[in-house]
């Protein structure tokens, strides 16, 4: 389990961001190049396309202690693979709706379309998402206690 508190005891969330290689990952690079900061709580996983993100990955992240999961892809219509983000959009809409139906906090999951040119937006999105997750606090509804309990 990662340490989730700062030195002065404040909650520090763990956020997993899936970014498509062609737009959002490049947008993250641009945010970096432009020195636009966002919380270190956000850790990025590079995927070829938002349509590569399996609901299993999202649940896995929550199971392992993530407090928020965000999926970033090219803007609809701009997918490098033409249609990938359209499929991702339907899948994630339905999945999020199901998580909501199960009573999981709606704001723990998010999809954002960020282009390679939107470094500013990338950092804004991550700041905003991290803010929301910090407000929500620790993910307790979808955690796996086995991962949480230290083994001794």
């Amino acid at each position, binding site marked *: 389990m990662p340490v989730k508190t700062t030195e002065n005891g404040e909650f520090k969330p763990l956020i997993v961001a899936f970014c498509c290689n062609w737009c959002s990952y490049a947008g993250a690079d641009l945010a970096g190049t432009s020195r636009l900061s966002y919380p270190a709580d956000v850790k990025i996983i590079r995927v070829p396309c938002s349509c590569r993100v399996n609901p299993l990955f999202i649940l896995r992240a929550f199971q392992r202690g993530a407090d928020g999961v965000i999926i970033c892809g090219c803007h609809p219509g701009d997918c490098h693979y033409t249609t990938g983000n359209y499929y991702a959009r339907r899948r994630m809409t339905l999945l999020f709706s199901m998580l909501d139906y199960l009573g999981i906090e709606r704001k723990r999951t998010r999809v954002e379309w960020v282009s390679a040119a939107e470094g500013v937006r990338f950092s804004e999105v991550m700041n905003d998402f991290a803010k929301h997750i910090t407000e929500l606090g620790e993910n307790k509804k979808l955690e796996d206690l086995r*991962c949480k309990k230290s083994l001794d």
Partner: protein
Amino acid sequence: MYYKMKVEKLPELYALIASEKALYLPIEQAGAVEFRKWDESSCVRLDCLNTLKSAKGVFLPQSENLVAFKTEGKNISVIDNSETAFPFVIFGVRACDARSFDILDRVFLSDPVDTYYKTRRDNATVVTLACNEPEETCFCRNFGIDAADPAGDASAWIVDGELYVRPNTEKGETFVSRLSQLLEEASDVEKLEAAKQSVRDILGKLPFAELNLDRFKGDNMLDIFHDPAWKSLSESCLGCGTCTYVCPTCQCYDIKDFDTGSGIQRYRTWDSCMFSDFTKTAGGQPRPSQVERFRQRFMHKLVYYPMNNDDIYGCVGCGRCVAKCPVSMNIVKVIKTLGGEKK
């Protein structure tokens, strides 16, 4: 010696038991009655004939931690994080489930002893409850079980608004002695005996009261094994684990490792011989299709287990599988098809 008290005082009884030891009772939650740890808010359902999962879970939980391995960089340390033992009472066990403990004991307490199981058995006091209204799915009678007079460390009856208790073992005596403030000696045993008799009458009238088990003898093993009827019996089987997981005598388990990220949690979990990956090995699947898996389950209950265990059948006739199988295929159908109709 019988003792008794008013049924209304049951909550007091539970509280008294629970003040000393953990108490397991058939408790309803979200419409499902299972043996669960009691507290004041519990909805106790002593009227429930069959809990969904059997009482065996108290001794052999569906999953339990065995040991853990903690990793730090390239170092691994072994940690025993199995459950710590505590004394408990399990109350309201039916005659069939009580018999299942004997069947499981023969497996887990014989050499090599399963210490996890044994610890729980040693810590347990089993208080059974006689059946009042057996169902059409009940067929315990065929296995010499008397649902009107169940075994256990102590036995209990509910007749005419009164709870009767009879200690059967030393543990049972202790159990009863601790409840002296609530129990009084029963003098109207005849009333109880009459009630037992009326239940026995019903048990005799149940549709599966008299099954013919003659064929299931060790010397017929190969004959039964090769019976062509297995194919048609198994063809509807979905390969799910419902029968196994509700069964009080199914005892197979799997040991699995869960990667927690900072180490490995090794745990055991019930397994089902109906599953396609049961006992699968590197060399393949010894029982490749559902026919063989299906046959295995019933051969084990009706032939292999008795062969190795003084002719005691590996079925207690609780009827859970009869009630729960999604395709209505069950051990009664198997017995009737392979063994013929009534005696």
